[in-house]
């Protein structure tokens, strides 16, 4: 169950299972492509994303009559290559997404483990804290805090982590408090295992798969939040690149240069869509109950089809 990629054989079975669901497979493939794009941005990008050229401003994409092969997706208001900016933008987006998710998950998991393991008063205080923070007006507070710390990639990561750890805490705490009542965990505690051993040997393994799934699902939220905050001018700042930022700076040129807003926006849509497709499949696959349902549905569909022919 889950995503065991430690050895070759499970990987192959994972891939073959994924292949059954074409949409998820495509999503996964696109996801991998975007990651590769981000990793190899310096090699792939035809130009430096920050290089300006006053003579090459607002050139349309190659298929337009005025376009040229020098700039496949055209250039922006400073003559920067749109394609290169999108490729480099993937880096910013993925970095912010991954780092934020990992930090938020670490905070959430730690607090969730603690709450679930200690139970009682600690548990209720921590969960109350989660409830309270969930009710904070999200983006508004982010904007406020950014106003204080000054905008930038690291501010954004810090703020998004601090405002997104709650889901992980809830998930982990739920699993921990239910697993603790399992006979084998109770047994381990009775024979005097240290709490740390109980946590690491008995509890954590149960958490890996749901946590991973949640992480991937949450990732898209972070991507969208980063884009929105950058769009509002409170996120990533030039000369750094970000898709949300590029949409914002292309906004003034919407009317004469549609490609400035369209392409970075499409990049966001494609990224989020492909991750969602894959994550949905993963969620079902890693949940035995959902798996059964899916299996039942496939069988039913097959039967229906057979009957029809």
């Amino acid at each position, binding site marked *: 169950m889950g995503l065991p990629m430690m050895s070759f054989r499970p990987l192959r079975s994972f891939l073959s299972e994924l292949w059954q669901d074409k949409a998820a497979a495509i999503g996964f493939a696109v996801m991998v492509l975007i990651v590769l794009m981000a990793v190899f941005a310096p090699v792939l990008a035809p130009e430096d994303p920050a290089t300006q050229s006053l003579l090459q401003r607002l050139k349309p994409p190659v298929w337009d009559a005025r376009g040229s092969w020098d700039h496949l997706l055209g250039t922006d208001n400073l003559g920067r290559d749109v394609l290169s900016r999108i490729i480099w933008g993937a880096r910013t987006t993925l970095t912010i997404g991954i780092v934020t998710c990992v930090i938020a998950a670490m905070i959430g998991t730690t607090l969730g483990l603690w709450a679930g393991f200690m139970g009682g008063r600690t548990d209720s205080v921590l969960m109350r804290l989660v409830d309270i923070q969930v009710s904070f007006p999200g983006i508004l507070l982010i904007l406020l805090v950014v106003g204080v710390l000054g905008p930038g990639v690291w501010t954004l990561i810090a703020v998004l982590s601090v405002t997104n750890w709650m889901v992980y805490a809830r998930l982990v705490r739920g699993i921990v408090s239910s697993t603790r009542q399992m006979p084998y965990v109770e047994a381990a505690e009775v024979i005097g295992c240290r709490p740390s051993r109980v946590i690491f040997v008995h509890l954590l393994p149960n958490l890996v798969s749901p946590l991973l799934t949640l992480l991937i699902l949450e990732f898209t939220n972070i991507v969208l939040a980063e884009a929105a905050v950058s769009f509002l001018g409170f996120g990533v700042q030039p000369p750094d690149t970000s898709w949300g930022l590029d949409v914002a700076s292309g906004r003034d040129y*919407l009317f004469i240069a549609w490609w400035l807003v369209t392409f970075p926006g499409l990049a966001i849509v494609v990224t989020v869509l492909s991750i969602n497709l894959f994550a949905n499949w993963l969620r079902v696959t890693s949940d035995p109950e959902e798996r059964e349902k899916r299996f039942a549905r496939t069988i039913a569909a097959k039967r229906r089809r057979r009957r029809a022919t």
Partner: protein
Amino acid sequence: MTSKVLAMSASLAALVLSGLTAGSATAQSITIAIGSEPSTLDPQLRDDGGERQINDNIYEALMARTPDGELIPGLAAEAPVQIDDTTWQFKLREGVMFHNGTPFTAESVVGSVLRVIDPANNSEQLSYFSSVSGAEAVDELTVNIKTSGPDPILPSRMYWMKMIDPGYAAEGDLAGVPVGTGPYMFDAWNRGADLTLVVNPDYWGGEAQIDDVTYRFVPEAGTRLSGLMAGEFDVITNLLPEFTTSVPKFAAVPGLETSVFVLGTDNEVTQDPKVREALNLAIDRQSMVDGLFMGYATVAKGSHVNPAAFGFNETLDYYPYDLDRAKALIEEAGAVGKPLVVIGESGRWLKDREQIEVVAAYWAETGLDVSTEIQEFSQYLDSLMGSGPRPDAIFIANSNELLDADREMSYIYHMDGAAASNSDADMAAMIDAARVETDVDKRKALYDEAQQLGHDLNFTVPLFNLEDIYGMSERMDWQPRTDAKLIVSEMTVTE
């Protein structure tokens, strides 16, 4: 049948576009999109562009300007006379009435002056009127305005002081329902959405052609443009140069703003005059004008003083573009690889970030290690005017509302000026002397000398005199003004 359908669809379209495009022969209405909503309609308290753009049509001042900037009498009947060092005398126009029927008299002027300078009101416009100390009525239509010291530019200052009805200011709602003497009268203000004015049929200068005008508040240039293209607006402000070819009509006029970098003359790298000279020589200003502004800006002629302002030194040379010389100077100064931090902001002025980034790229070519810091606006203001260390180079688009060199001089060249980055006492002495010099020629000579000094020492890197560009619908006919005021009575609609 067909005409009926046509008429129906036309009225439907009018409904959809909230009736804005459906002009008729009897009443002419236009819609103007401006960048920001007024924070108040009180004409004397704030220094607020949105407020000004609207109140310029409701209120008038003693002095006015022609569209190309020449100072002429407004509510004053003739040019004022300086009767002694600290007194200017104004004769007032006869028969002028406020919109509420109160006659405009010397007492109205006295009330208006005293209200602006009353410390209790804490007016943000005080900086325009810093020299004004009081006013007294001589007779019904003659008024003396007193200054604390000799003030040669008082008439220019009075162009900025809107005349209110003191009685109404005390009892009425000046902030919400303005009452002036101007060609348009306040009608309605739906906060957050729009504001409407109607023509003043009893205006002393004759009734204006356009019957009513609706202002919409649209902060984004792109959105304003979309609205113009969609037929919702008749006039939009701050059109980007790129769009001049897309809009139905546009008009450009040299504006009040000059973009400039102020150099820190006491900073490690920029204290060397050679480095500062190199920074001025390394920029290809003309290709920036062509590439960035599509020609709608002019290269500043050796100084950041507005060319339309009194005191502009027209004999200065342009800084040439000479990259090799710049590189050599940096080499000579031993500054190769030394850090230069360029500070700026984004979104406040036309193409500010673009100018900053392009100039920083030029400077990087000289061999300096240039880094750019685009700061959030409050942080930027602190860098520009705070008490901390002066930046190596900081960008500003300076605006000269009084069209007098005193602004650029006191603000950027005078060592005590808020945005100044030098500590040159000679320069400061010249500026102080010019400020109280009532002899026009002597004053001009002092400014010429100060500008020559600043030019030779490269205290600043002047860039461009920016042009204001307005987008207009097909039916509009209007020549915009140098002082960037949107005077609706000067607009006409052709249909």
